[in-house]
């Protein structure tokens, strides 16, 4: 059981009468890039929201490294080691790029300074600020954002905003990174770059990644494993090529006549 970084068992949620997700069993191994795919409205983002604690699941359990995390608050789940990006980018728009990442570093144990330390400007405050900034700049340089570090986040072009969101998520030092449609709104070339970035993230940060994506090139290009959802239930699951050639999946995507 502890072999999986993330495991959901019979995960489900109900909004009133609507079953948005039902009996979803995902098992993500260490260093995997795991895809969660399916048509619009299949319940992918809902599952993300349950894993990150935005919604509490009404059925089933979620385990992170063997520890149960369902029903915990979003903050706690982040502290336990899950970070995410959003389908519609959510940066701290009125803050500079480097500060966005520094917010991500906020909860690192070595950067803990109390309110009084900062108010009285004790030496520790300055040391911590300096170290945080340095680490944030390191992270930004990995994502090719060092040049723009003092720009407002809202002034970055779309592709860079996506990258900044990933950088901010990684700054929280997660065990598992959730990417919600990272390639949405990107052209094929940008998508290629994004695939490189994601691979780089896995290798450099020794990261496990769970992502939602519509772009089949990206999914078949980088995912090891996928789960295909339709109407909140699992349609197929397994290694990427096998799952995508599953007749059920093809039917769901292409309709019955094909």
């Amino acid at each position, binding site marked *: 059981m502890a072999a999986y970084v993330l495991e959901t068992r019979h995960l489900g949620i109900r909004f009133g009468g609507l079953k948005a997700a039902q009996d979803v069993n995902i098992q993500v191994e260490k260093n995997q890039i795991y895809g969660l795919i399916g048509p619009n409205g*299949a319940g992918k983002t809902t599952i993300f929201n349950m894993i990150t604690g935005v919604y509490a699941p009404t059925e089933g359990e979620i385990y992170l490294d063997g520890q149960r995390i369902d029903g915990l608050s979003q903050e706690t789940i982040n502290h336990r080691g899950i970070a995410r990006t959003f389908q519609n980018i959510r*940066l701290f728009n009125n803050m500079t790029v480097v500060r966005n990442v520094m917010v991500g570093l906020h909860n690192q144990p070595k950067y803990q300074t109390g309110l009084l330390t900062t108010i009285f400007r004790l030496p520790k405050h300055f040391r911590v600020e300096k170290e945080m900034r340095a680490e944030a700049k390191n992270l930004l340089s990995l994502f090719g954002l060092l040049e723009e570090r003092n720009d407002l986040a809202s002034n970055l072009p779309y592709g860079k905003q996506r990258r900044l969101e990933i950088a901010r998520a990684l700054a929280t030092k997660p065990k598992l990174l959730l990417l919600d449609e990272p390639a949405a709104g990107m052209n094929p070339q940008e998508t290629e770059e994004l695939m490189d970035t994601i691979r780089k993230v896995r290798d450099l940060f020794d990261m496990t990644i769970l992502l939602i994506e519509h772009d089949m090139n990206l999914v078949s290009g980088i995912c090891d494993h996928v789960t295909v959802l*339709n109407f909140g239930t699992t349609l197929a699951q397994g290694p990427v090529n096998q799952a995508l050639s599953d007749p059920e999946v093809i039917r769901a995507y292409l309709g019955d006549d094909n």
Partner: protein
Amino acid sequence: MKEERISQKTGGFLRAAKKVRWKHYVNYIVIAVLLIVFSTSSLTGGMRSSSQYLLEKIAISMILAVSLSMLVGFLGELSLGHAGFMCVGAYLGGKTAAILSASLGNGFLTFLIALLAGGISAAICGIIVGLPALRLKGDYLAIVTLAFGEIAKSIFMNSSNETFGGALGLETPRYDRKSLFILAFLLVLLTLAVIQNMIRSRHGRAITAIRDSEIAARATGINVTRYKLIVFAMSAFFAGIAGVLYSYSNQTLQSSKFGFNYSIEILVMVVLGGMGSINGSLIAATLITYLNVKLATILTGNLAILQNLIYATVLILIVIFSNAPALSGFREKYAPMNLWRRKRTAKVDPALRRDDAKSWSRIPTKIKMDELLSIDTRPEEHRAVRLEGDKPERRD
């Protein structure tokens, strides 16, 4: 945040750091220098008591504006009841001082204890009002703060004569007029130091992150509950301190003074000063208080009713001028700050600033422009897998 942008790319990082540091301390220095000048003049007896009163008023407004600025400009929660916190501080601090003055006299010690009593009681109210803030958003929270202010006012208004003076008002403690405003300005410096240091630290970053996107802040592991309560408590604490100063500065306390209109006056200082700008709030607090007091002395007799008319007209014109989208081009061109800053701001490539996704989202609609924009435009054969199977959308 903005200061940093100026210095990007071209200048060396060290030089930029020096510039930023200097800017951090300029408000303390200005206030300290003015304080030294005024206090020498006052202590040597060269200052009229009306000027001393004006300075006390300005200091009180500054503390109120800076403390509200933390709540509105940095945490992004609208408060329409800041005068309520002030009211609690004024009454409890004033009462404490009245009780203590019997044994300790009207000295500095009494003043200090009264300050703490007023500040802490207001902070407790701040936490109580902050609790709904965890559940309520925007305008709904604003009405709760408004309600709190009215409740506080009403409770003190109806208190008995022995406790808080009721409708007759509470007799307030006295302090040496010559030096009260000096203490008041020292408290301004203290407020400024505490709030500014907090804002310019990791805690302040967390607070502004909550303002920009609460959802993203939570997902990034920021303890939103804790920070909201801290900000509410601190903001109320300093409002309470301002209240204690107010009670020392005035002969009697009338709780009707602390109504909705006073809260609005403080909010106006913050908004006119520029959201998220502490120095702006300081300047606006000084100007508005000065104008109010001066107008009240100039416009006497039949002209007195003109005061509100002038105030209201100026307020509307300033807000429209500084916010109307139609005037943005004009503002960019002629705002004195921009004229001065233009030369210094490193030019950012305009192509970087223009961004399709962004301008789409500016149309206030729930139609998901992101999705429209992400529709695949590749040739038919490549995208067959993705699009055709899409079922009619259900919201997830």
